């Protein structure tokens, strides 16, 4: 087989490792797929009554795309945890001592995590539809929205790998996990940034999560007041393309550097 052939074969072996984890511990992974559903239901019923959307629309019209984006963010934790555990337990060292392709370790992880996100997203779409959320601009635009969300997840993958390789042990991850929540709240995931106090809205609207949420709403035809009231909001699709690419451009090389630095 060629080098590229082996890289792909090795990547698939690493991906299959994660799929086997799912098979061996189905409860754990199924719970993780339903966690976003739980958030959707909790925040939907918690805040839904207090929300005043134009034309008496359901809060789910705004919230569902927000939870989509939030699910991308929470995927980061899974990536980080997996990478840190492998490093801590010596599994990464074993991979590095094998004649396998070193890119495959990361590629396998990436494929597995994207599959994981795809399933979580599918479960969430089903729930959203059941709750009355709809896309109103046709299937192609809806697919484009899902594409942008997955692009964000892809960018967060590299942040996850970078942090996962950087922290000393699994305990330090807790700190990172706690920080994920404020990042989720400081975005347009739950409310349009234009409804926030000006300073907070400004911070939140530049959050890559907001770009993804607002862009998804734009493409789905769901309400988000910032689409018409702010510059970032009206350019959200562009932002949702640029910000993940920027993040990837920064964190992909950083991750590769970290991985190589394991030998220093």
């Amino acid at each position, binding site marked *: 087989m060629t080098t590229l052939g082996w890289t792909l074969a090795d990547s698939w072996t690493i991906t299959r490792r994660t799929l*086997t984890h799912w098979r061996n511990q189905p409860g754990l992974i199924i719970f993780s797929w339903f966690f976003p559903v739980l958030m959707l239901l909790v925040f939907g019923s918690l805040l839904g009554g207090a929300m005043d959307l134009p034309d008496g629309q359901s809060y789910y019209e705004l919230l569902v795309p927000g939870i989509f984006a939030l699910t991308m963010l929470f995927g980061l934790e899974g990536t980080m945890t997996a990478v840190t555990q492998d490093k801590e*337990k010596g599994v990464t060292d074993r991979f590095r001592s094998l004649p396998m392709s070193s890119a495959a370790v990361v590629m396998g992880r990436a494929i597995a995590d994207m599959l994981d996100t795809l399933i979580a997203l599918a479960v969430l779409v089903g729930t959203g539809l059941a709750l009355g959320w709809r896309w109103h601009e046709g299937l192609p635009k809806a697919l484009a929205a899902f594409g942008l969300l997955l692009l964000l997840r892809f960018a967060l993958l590299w942040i996850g790998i970078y942090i996962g390789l950087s922290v000393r042990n699994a305990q330090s991850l807790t700190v990172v996990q706690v920080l994920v929540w404020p990042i989720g709240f400081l975005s347009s995931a739950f409310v349009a940034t234009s409804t926030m106090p000006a300073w907070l809205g400004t911070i939140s609207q530049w959050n890559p999560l907001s770009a993804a949420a607002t862009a998804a709403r734009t493409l789905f035809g769901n309400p988000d007041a910032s689409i018409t009231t702010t510059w970032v909001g009206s350019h959200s699709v562009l932002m949702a393309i640029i910000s993940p690419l920027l993040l990837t451009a920064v964190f992909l090389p950083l991750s590769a550097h970290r991985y190589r630095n394991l030998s220093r």
Partner: protein
Amino acid sequence: MTTQQVIEAADVRKNYRGGTEGAGLNGFDLTVTAGTVTGLLGPNGAGKTTAVRILSTLLEMDSGQASVAGYDVRRQGAEVRRRIGLVGQYAAIDEVLTGRQNLTMFGRLNHLAHAKAAKRADELLEQFDLVAAAGQAVGKYSGGMRRRLDLAASLIVAPDVLFVDEPTTGLDPAARLEVWAAVRQLVSNGTTVLLTTQYLEEADQLADRISMLKDGKVVAEGTPDQLKTQLGSDWLDLVLTDPAELEVVRRLAEPLADGELKIEGQRLSVPVKDRTRALVVMANSLHEANIEPEDITLRRPTLDEVFLHLTGSKVAV
């Protein structure tokens, strides 16, 4: 192939910036002959793991030369990795996967075809007595079983050199025996092994040659017997029934002593040069003085004494 050097390291140096991550190497030299077990013995922080990580291409050295199986560790890492097996300090296996799933995965990553990886997994499960637990998640394995699976995983493709880093640290005595048996079996199959350990007994039991490491440098090297001989003298041990006789016996033994006598309770240890003569003379003197010792034995110095002598620091026994 008979006397081929499979590991050659010369003046390897490694300094950790920041310091806390691990012990550095400070002019480390090592040669390992094919088909032997070499023990790298030293206390915590001597640099054993650093040496193994450098030789197995996981870590870059600052300066020096090292080759494994004829390939330069620095420039031909991929070639080296094709010919080594590594059993790290922690059992580096996937805890969620079963024993069989682990071995099949590592088989695939060693680029065996599916069927061959499965077949090899079965052979190794058999060899390491893990057939009954093959379908169980590794998370449920005992420490000894994990270690054996770890060993099995590094033998999927028969390696030219197997690195085993502190295989029994943290294991209970029974599990330690299990792992020793597994390592002995490898050796009987002709695998070259570089074993690090902080246990003298382990090095004495398993290794053909021992390199004693202190502060990142090999301070002594040889077979266990040679190292014991390096201390110069053998010991004549006398255990007395009556502590009151100690002083008399000490005076009788003094002319035979080649160095300082040691007294521990009712035991008198006399360093001697000419073993047989010392034993005969001593036995005669005791007989004439009408003293009946509980025990009188000749012994070589223990590795423990060698280590203490050479490094001034104690190793776990």
